């Protein structure tokens, strides 16, 4: 029941918001209450998993591997927790950011449906069910992209849906192949069947298709085009939600499926992952250098950061997986925050185009400090969270004697600093260009309530970043336990299949 709660709460909230879609003020509060309830449920789930190890629930009472299993090990539970944190942050920010028009068109319903899909993907123990949650996410995110209604939104959404549909089709084909070859789709069951058969054409083919599908969802090179095409078009609230969670579900699926079911250490899979991840890091950061809008720059940085997480899986040593998981947590918090602060900058200056803004350091120094925390963390400056994440990845690649990977990771880190300092120089230090709203002082002022709603989530997320940075110990330990669950999933398998573990 506790497992299903993380899915049922956002789903029930979605239904309520859909019923209340004509009463924007009530729907807004219901949505916020749903996000808080999700956060509480996710904390309870994490506590349970920390105390008793992986837990599983059989939907409809059908025993695994015949029914659909929901299962949470530490990685899943932590991902759900961070989903809850982001959900609350985004809901609070949305109080002052989402327009009435978007609310009337179902912003809250779609957001909650998206959260249900994300939590479902994190919690399911079944390959086909994972596909279903991906679809739920895709449909909800498509809706969120178009409710703004402009031409740019529709243009972004078409590219987004186009590539994602291809990925989904590959996912479904891979799942079909896997089922044909093994006769089961329960991940714990597959864990007992697939190893040793990984050189069979059907299994390797399924692995390749799933790798493509998850890679596209995670925006890996060369299938990342949908992300920069779409992420800067919707409201800031929505793009922060997307930036925090959507690609990370792809990374989570890679981590889960390519440790539990397939073996990422298989030479051909590992080669693809390593090369793909390094190119993803490099291409993302180079793409960002060419951009001039804040959210566009940040979108390309998501891609580059995805490379770091996948590299953690690709190196496939225990330390590297710990690094990947640590990176995943740190990145969700930092990236959501950067999008929220990017929105704040746009609110204070009237634009998010770097050519049209400036002078913020003089006008709002505290906003500058607030921006620097996640920005420097993203670039990997000590003592912020990103430093530890990058350190783990680089150390793991050096230990595995993959010096090129380590070099790429370090150079990309440097280039990330370049991008962040570009935003810093243009938005904060430069004088506001003449004639723009920022220079003439015609930017619409924010009320006190709106300022509080916009600032609080950014402050809270920045505080999390600083805490992870100053006390990485507990988080590192947790990542280590989560990685242990992934590498030796005995407890996971026992939780799902009962005592009869292989």
């Amino acid at each position, binding site marked *: 029941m506790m497992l*299903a709660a993380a899915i*049922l709460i956002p*789903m029930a909230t979605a239904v309520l918001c859909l019923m209340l879609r004509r009463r924007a003020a009530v729907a807004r509060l219901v949505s916020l209450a749903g996000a808080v309830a999700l956060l509480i449920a996710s904390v309870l789930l994490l506590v349970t998993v920390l105390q008793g190890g992986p837990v599983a629930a059989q939907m409809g009472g059908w025993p695994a591997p015949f029914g659909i299993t929901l299962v949470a090990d530490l990685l899943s539970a932590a991902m759900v927790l961070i989903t809850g944190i982001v959900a609350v942050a985004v809901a609070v920010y949305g109080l002052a950011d989402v327009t009435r028009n978007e609310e009337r068109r179902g912003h809250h319903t779609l957001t909650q449906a998206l959260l249900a899909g994300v939590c479902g993907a994190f919690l399911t123990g079944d390959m086909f069910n994972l596909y279903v949650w991906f679809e739920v996410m895709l449909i909800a995110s498509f809706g969120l992209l178009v409710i703004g209604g402009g*031409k740019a939104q529709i243009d972004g959404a078409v590219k987004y849906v186009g590539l994602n549909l291809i990925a989904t089709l590959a996912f479904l084909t891979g799942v079909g192949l896997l089922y044909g070859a093994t006769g089961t789709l329960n991940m714990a069951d597959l864990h007992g069947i697939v190893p040793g058969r990984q050189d069979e054409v059907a299994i390797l083919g399924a692995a390749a298709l799933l790798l493509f599908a998850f890679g596209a969802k995670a925006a890996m090179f060369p299938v990342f085009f949908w992300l920069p095409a779409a992420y800067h078009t919707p409201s800031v609230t929505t793009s922060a939600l997307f930036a925090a969670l959507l690609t990370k579900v792809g990374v989570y699926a890679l981590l889960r499926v390519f440790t539990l079911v397939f073996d990422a250490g298989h030479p051909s899979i590992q080669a693809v992952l390593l090369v793909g991840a390094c190119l993803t890091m490099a291409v993302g950061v180079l793409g960002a250098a060419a951009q001039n809008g804040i959210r566009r720059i940040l979108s390309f940085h998501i891609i580059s950061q995805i490379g770091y997480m996948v590299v953690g899986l690709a190196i496939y040593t225990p330390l590297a997986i710990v690094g990947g998981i640590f990176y995943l947590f740190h990145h969700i918090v930092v990236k959501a925050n950067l999008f929220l602060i990017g929105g704040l900058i746009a609110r204070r200056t009237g634009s998010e185009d770097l050519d049209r803004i400036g002078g913020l350091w003089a006008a709002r120094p505290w906003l500058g400090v607030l921006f620097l925390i996640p920005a420097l963390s993203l670039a990997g400056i000590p003592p912020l969270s990103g430093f530890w994440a990058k350190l783990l990845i680089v150390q793991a690649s050096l230990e595995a004697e993959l010096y090129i990977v380590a070099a790429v990771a370090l150079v990309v880190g440097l280039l990330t600093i370049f991008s962040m300092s570009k935003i810093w120089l243009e938005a904060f230090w430069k004088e506001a260009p003449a004639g723009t709203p920022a220079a003439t002082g015609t930017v619409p002022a924010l009320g006190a309530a709106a300022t509080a709603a916009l600032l609080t989530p950014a402050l809270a997320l920045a505080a999390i970043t600083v805490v992870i940075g100053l006390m990485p110990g507990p988080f590192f330990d947790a990542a280590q336990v989560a990685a242990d669950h992934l590498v030796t999933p005995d407890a996971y398998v026992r939780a799902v299949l009962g005592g009869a573990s292989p």
Partner: protein
Amino acid sequence: MNSLILTTATRALAPLLLVFSVYILLRGHNEPGGGFIGGLVAATAFALLEKAEGVARARRLLRLRPLTVAALGLGAALLAGLWGAVAKGHVLAGVWPLIEKTADGGKSGLPVGSVLLFDVGVYLVVVGAVCGVLFALEEAATALECEPDEGGAGRGGGAPKTIDQTMDRTIDRTVDGGDR
């Protein structure tokens, strides 16, 4: 659309399709069929009505706004899941309040319970979602065909001038269900 053949045929076909859709829904319990395909058949009936007699009439016949139908369906499915959780301890477990075990170990009674409620939910979601999209697209197409100088005031009245406006209005219609 003004076609005598279509209107006449629809009058016979639409009720037939609706009854058949319920049959498919119920049959789905143990045989091919179920809420999804039943919902699609029912949506076909409304599509026919909308083509033959206009969107306004089809909306009236559906009575509720399409998205409200979908929301009710999603709620019903959710309740079915919770019902199982409360009664049997497993989310989505089947609950059969009207079935009793007979003395000889068999079962008798009406197989109506949480599973049917779930299927009805799916049926409603499909009907609501398909009708919502279909009606809104039809209205957008009609609005585009209108002459611009017809334009009345207010949202939904008058012809949109640009593709942007058309898209805007289509989205609004999907959400609002033609409520002016």
